[in-house]
């Protein structure tokens, strides 16, 4: 094996404006509070990363990865919301989104919950397929982003399978033929309102 070099310490300063990037222990993506730029640490240097904010009221901005996807099963290829509806049997369609539009998977990018609850949160939002419109937000504090795009792809399969009917999941032949193909991910925040220990999204009628 090649020699692995010494430890590197990288100061987290915004490459655009030079401000200190706020960070917590586990963060992998950092949002500059001065210029709103978003940065990801890649191979020891900060690279720009697009972060979108979805419209809605709420003071807690939870980051999610949105992955368009295609699924291959023994029943065929699922590449539309109509096909995804048949796969899950319980899909709610967002307003203004057609049956032919590509299905999207919502994968949490933060660890505000325990690992099983993260899967549950992703499942509930994916089943709702919310129609999102993005807005400009300034001076916002986003919950710590601890999962990279690759992590979202790895977590995507179980979130997708958790939306599928129980009968299909228990079928060996279905699982054997199941193949998940995620597309390019978008990082976005969804606004939630804190209600005691819970987080509530009014438009989706969703409690986490």
């Amino acid at each position, binding site marked *: 094996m090649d020699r692995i070099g010494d430890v590197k*310490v990288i100061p987290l300063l915004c490459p655009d404006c030079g401000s200190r990037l706020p960070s917590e222990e586990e963060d992998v993506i950092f949002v500059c509070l001065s210029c709103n730029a978003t940065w990801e640490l890649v191979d020891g240097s900060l690279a720009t990363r697009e972060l979108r904010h979805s419209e809605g009221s709420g003071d807690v901005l939870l980051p999610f990865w949105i992955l368009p996807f295609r699924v291959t099963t023994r029943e065929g290829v699922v590449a539309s919301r109509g096909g995804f509806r048949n796969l899950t049997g319980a899909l709610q369609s967002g307003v203004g989104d057609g049956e032919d539009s590509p299905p999207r998977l919502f994968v949490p990018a933060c660890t505000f919950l325990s690992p099983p609850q993260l899967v549950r949160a992703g499942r509930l939002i994916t089943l709702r397929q919310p129609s999102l419109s993005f807005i400009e937000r300034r001076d916002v504090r986003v919950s710590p982003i601890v999962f990279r795009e690759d992590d979202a792809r790895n977590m995507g399969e179980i979130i997708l399978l958790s939306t599928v009917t129980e009968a299909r999941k228990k079928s060996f032949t279905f699982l054997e033929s199941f193949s998940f193909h995620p597309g390019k991910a978008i990082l976005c925040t969804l606004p939630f309102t804190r209600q005691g220990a819970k987080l509530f999204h009014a438009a989706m009628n969703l409690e986490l």
Partner: protein
Amino acid sequence: MTGAMTAAISCPQCGSPFSFREGARNGLCPSCGTSLAVSGESGIARFYLEERLDLPRSRAAVRKFLATSGVDGKLVETLKFEKGELCFLPYWSLKGLAVGWQWTERETVVKEEVTDENGTTRVVERRGPREQFFETVASPLDFSSPAFDTTSFGLMGIALAGSVLPLRGMDHALLTRRGTVYDPVKGADQVRGEALAAARDRSRPAGVLRIHDSVRLCSEKLALTSYPVWRFSFSAGERVYPVVVDAINGRILKARFPGAMETRLFAPMLVILLVVFSWTLHSALGAVALLAFLVWMYTSHGLSPASLAVFFFRLTRRKEDVRHG
């Protein structure tokens, strides 16, 4: 390697030392307030643990160990230690989340009430139909594994003491001046595979007939830590004995040391008594006894003057070397 280790390194902005929790990605400089990300080549942070025992103290630990292991006290006092070598042995540490699913087919047991001809009812268990289960795997992962073939060092795992000691940011140039730094033989992908296999095993229920699963790693934090050990040898008589000492807590990890002395009077005395006694009965019987001894001696030790001298006059000998670790 579990527990709250902290790593001590210096801030590149102000030069102040700062520490952060092992397994964390970022820390905050307490002096200038700058957020700092800690990383390494290919995203692998590399640390080392500073040795707490120098060579004289390690040798003292060996003497103490030998004294309590039944080795002759006089021999322990006269041991001659050879030059020692400080070795840094690499360990992988992986933290993250294991996420995925597992499909299993399991045996089921059906309980039935059976009434016999006497009217006694009892419950019997019989094998039921096979059932299929789909379960989500989502659990935190905290895994460590040697990155080097440590069997020659007798080191099977990092001592508990390591978890309360501060880690230091790897400085290869500094460490190579102080000792031998071993590079990892095991690669990062192999460690990931081992960690995921451990996660799969943990979530595997009993009574499984068939399994199909897919478990992946998320939010991976991979680190390579070098652990210090002293390796040296000592001579006793004509022999040289190797020893490996944990440089953190002085534990003897691997050693070979001289066995205890034993006095052997029975065999030579028995031979002499038998031959003399046989001779007193009859000279022919004495000759037969002497011949029988010489045949036995020839087949087992040889009949050279040296082997006869050893048999009759070397009445003390050392038992076989004792191996530890």
